[in-house]
């Protein structure tokens, strides 16, 4: 690419909705500049399968939290997230991305 881009990390946390607030508070605490929460419709994991329309309230639903952040912050954030997902239903993955406006991350 000729356009200047910057290497960042894209953290994706799939977490049960009631515990979402724990992840977002943690991201606030670690100064992750931002995040976006996407709803999920259905899923399956070790604790069984679920569908959005087959649950009352938020319990049992998964949301996906996407946080693009600087590689320097990833270790701390992941360590903290691990603590949350160890008690709650959730999975975490990280991938490399390039971004165009580095002041946002």
């Amino acid at each position, binding site marked *: 690419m000729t356009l200047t881009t910057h290497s960042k990390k894209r953290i994706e946390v799939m977490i049960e909705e009631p*515990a979402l*607030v724990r992840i977002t508070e943690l991201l606030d605490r670690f100064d992750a500049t931002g995040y976006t929460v996407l709803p999920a419709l259905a899923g399956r994991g070790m604790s*069984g*399968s679920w569908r959005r329309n*087959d*649950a009352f*309230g*938020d*319990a049992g639903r998964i949301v996906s939290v996407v946080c693009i952040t600087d590689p320097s912050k990833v270790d701390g954030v992941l360590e903290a997230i691990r603590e949350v997902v160890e008690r709650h*239903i959730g999975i975490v993955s990280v991938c490399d991305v390039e971004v165009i406006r580095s002041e946002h991350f």
Partner: protein
Amino acid sequence: MGGMLEIAQQNLVSPMVLFFALGLFASFVKSDMSVPSAIAKTMALYLMMAIGFKGGVELAGSGLTMTLFAVLFAGAVLSALLPVIGFGLLRVTSGLSRVDAAAVAAHYGSISIVTFVAATQAVTSAGLDYDGYMIAVAAVMESPAIVVALLLAKRGNGASADTGQGAHIGREIFFNSSVLMLTGAFVIGYVTGKPGLETIAPFIVDPFRGVLCLFLLDMGLIAGRGLRSGLGKLSMPVLLYGLYMPLTGAVIGAGAAMLIGLPAGSAALLITLSASASYIAVPAALRLALPEATPSIYLTLSLGVTFPFNLAIGIPVYIWLAEVLT
């Protein structure tokens, strides 16, 4: 007033129960039928808004009485006491861990507002009246059970300490959508009274039972799918708990109703509240406060076993019990 069988039969062929059965059937034949979650959530809000408002209006008509305070107090005590009994029963009869037993017990101490609403319809169909303050009792019984169950779970060391999340959990327990809507609409109904009711009756009174049918269709779908996937994972003692615990609660609730001297209709509702198990507010609170507990156990039990039991069999029994005892 008729005997129990008559009430039961009348209940079983009501559109309410039949739409629930349709939902169950659809889930068993693996139909793709479903009610969007945004609609289910709104119908739940609607039912609480309507029942809360009407209760407040009723109370404005009848005024504050000693019975009101007595039954509010009784409700809080029942909600706190039933989890202790349920917890004990589960620990003795089933192999559930302390945490899972406490979680299940919390659901049965708290209440199911839809079971309550269905009971108000059945009570009316049976020719009885109930007092408006019973809605306030429902609101009061939502939360104490959760607090008690958390204490039961945390007394052991099965659950790690939950640091710094107290505020969230407290809000989830005392200001959850369900408690707030019930209480709020109740207060608004009380303040605006009959004239207020008249302005919005075509929204909250007239279509109420129809909305309840659609809501119960959805509950049938969800309960059926929960049963299909979860029933096999429940041990027999746990499964039986889903049947005898409502009856246990009912008997204790009936005792409280007699002590206070509630009239038959209100007594039937207090018994129903004691017998019913939560599946909206408590699960959400427990995922936050007690994530170690296994959701499939408490959800399958309260929504898949106890809810249909109460809807089809329990409610007529509770009404009959109330009529016999009062």
